[in-house]
């Protein structure tokens, strides 16, 4: 299998989709120069400036125009640059894209893939670091995806572009350079989790960059004789409740860790669902590890205060044992 970066894997998914379907196009700022993280590198040369559309700084128009273009028969891939800037286009995403099909009684679908690079990345501070995935899970009509590996970024992005729904597709900025094996053609169904590591003692649920920290924690724990099972949710809506429940039926112990703020983060939904519908599986109180409810600082040591570390996870696993 060829090895490539998370960045290249996303690029490949876009490239293949554009080759296969002339109605797929990309729209966002600076795409002609490859996008701000190089994730569109070379695509303008192949597909031209119409289909790799470099936009003015007009997030509301980027999103709103994509909604209209989707209703009119194309399949736009919308680049928001930083997930934080999607807040300049929230009416377009939440009041328009997510609801149009429903409000119009099914007369139209809105097949857009909204790429929102998220998360903390080298002192980017409060307005360039947020992880707001749980917001989108709260909005009927939206699909929410957060890949953690190159293979997933290829396979899930391919699936997102193929989907007829508006998909909020959140790549993590700290993963662009991560390498891994990717097979062209291996589409990954939305809504299915992946067992990133098997184990029997405790279930750790995570996604996106935090997944890697969870895996790091398992190495520490394994040395201590604790074998954690790590579930990469991959998609947050729909999310794979069954996979989590299945793991819990083995372990009876649940830890959810994510980079986003704990309060009303997606970990809350998981704990709530499990305690509501699978209470009997819980041998111990479930644990959430997530950011405190404070904005993200610029200074590296203050920024680190909101990170969930492998040690934090290992400690929680010991505690729940």
């Amino acid at each position, binding site marked *: 299998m060829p090895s490539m970066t998370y960045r290249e894997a996303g690029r490949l998914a876009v490239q293949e989709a554009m080759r296969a379907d002339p109605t797929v196009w990309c729209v966002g700022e600076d795409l002609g120069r490859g996008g701000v993280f190089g994730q569109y590198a070379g695509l303008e040369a192949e597909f031209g400036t119409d289909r790799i559309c470099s936009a003015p700084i007009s997030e509301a128009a980027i999103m*709103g125009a994509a*909604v209209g273009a989707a*209703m*009119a028969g194309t399949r736009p891939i919308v680049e928001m640059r930083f997930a934080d800037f999607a807040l300049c286009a929230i009416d377009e995403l939440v009041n*328009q894209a997510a609801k149009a099909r429903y*409000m*119009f009684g099914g007369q139209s679908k809105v097949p857009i893939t909204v790429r929102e690079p998220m998360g903390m990345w080298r002192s980017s501070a409060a307005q360039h670091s947020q992880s707001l995935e749980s917001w989108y899970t709260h909005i009927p009509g939206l699909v929410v995806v957060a890949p953690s590996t190159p293979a997933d970024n290829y396979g899930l992005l391919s699936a997102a572009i193929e989907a007829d729904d508006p998909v909020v597709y959140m790549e993590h900025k700290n993963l662009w350079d991560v390498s891994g094996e990717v097979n062209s053609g291996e589409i990954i169904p939305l*809504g299915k989790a992946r067992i990133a590591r098997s184990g029997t003692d405790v279930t750790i649920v995570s996604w996106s960059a935090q997944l890697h920290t969870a895996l790091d924690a398992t190495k520490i724990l394994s040395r201590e004789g604790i074998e954690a099972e790590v579930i990469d949710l991959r998609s947050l809506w729909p999310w794979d409740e069954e996979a989590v429940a299945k793991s819990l039926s083995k372990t009876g112990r649940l830890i959810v860790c994510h980079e986003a703020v704990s309060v009303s983060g997606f970990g809350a939904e998981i704990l709530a669902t499990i305690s509501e519908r699978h209470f009997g599986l819980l041998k111990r109180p479930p644990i959430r590890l997530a950011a405190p409810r404070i904005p993200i600082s610029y200074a590296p040591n203050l920024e680190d205060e909101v990170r969930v570390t492998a040690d934090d996870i290992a400690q929680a696993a010991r505690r729940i044992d």
Partner: protein
Amino acid sequence: MVKTNLDVGRLSERFRMMLRIRAFEEFAIRAADEKLVLGAIHPSIGQEACATGICAALRKDDFLLSTHRGHGHTLAKGADATAMMRELFGREGGICGGKGGSMHIADFSVGMLGANGVVAANINIAAGAAHAAKLMGQDKISVCIFGDGAINRGPFLEGLNWAAAFKLPVLFVCEDNEWASTTRSKDVTGGDSPGKRAEALGIAAEQVDGNDVMAVEDATTRLVAAIRAGGGPRLLHAVTYRLLGHTSVDKAAYRPDGEADKKWTNCPISRASTLLTGAGMSQTELDSFRSNAFDEMQAAFDDAKASPWPNTVNAYADVQDIGALQPLDT
């Protein structure tokens, strides 16, 4: 007052469309008064010439995007009045299955891509529909109607700049009825006009008497031709007046005494009627147009009133393909 080279046949057709819109909304207001319609109704009474004149200049496959005040636009684009009325009543067979109501009225089969409950939101969406047409090499155009209040929201700038930058086939129409809800727009609006704003964004603009249905149609026809020829976007500023309140329950008491009364004399239907009688059409014939429109909408009203509620499982349909709930999940 016989106007030379008045196209009587065309005007009488437009006149009939305006009457249909008027009658539709009179029944919609009645339905709201009788609590048969619970959601807000924003009547476009007095503005029928805009809807009629604009849509007369469009092809069926051209896109039209409207506002919260969109019954007239939708009817004029060719939607079925009965399905629309059922929608207002929230009944089975409503044009959006009863899920949208007045503020989300739409008929994609005639290119009408929706009213919108968010002021100005359709400006970017319309630009995007035009963007798609251009990408796919179609010669359709996209028309976006919005109010005088909408020009103070960001999407006006972003959407018009977008259309200019990508030279898209869009016609923007500012249907200026002087009021935005209870606020007189000019009190909170800087600059001279929507047209000047458009020009500053690189879009040529024209102003038209929005209560003169033929003038609206002619201006639209001219602009549409320029756009369809690849000339890029245009803006039409149609000056009209909202004869009633913002919604069917708004008495509009905030307007200066006599303002509306005076404007009633400029009602586009009366004006067309005068022209038609001036051109020799009989009062009897005009009256028959009126009663035809009335009868059509009375029938729509009766039909809607007699229609059943939508099946409640429809509440779970058309949310999304992936991760959709089953009704049982709840």
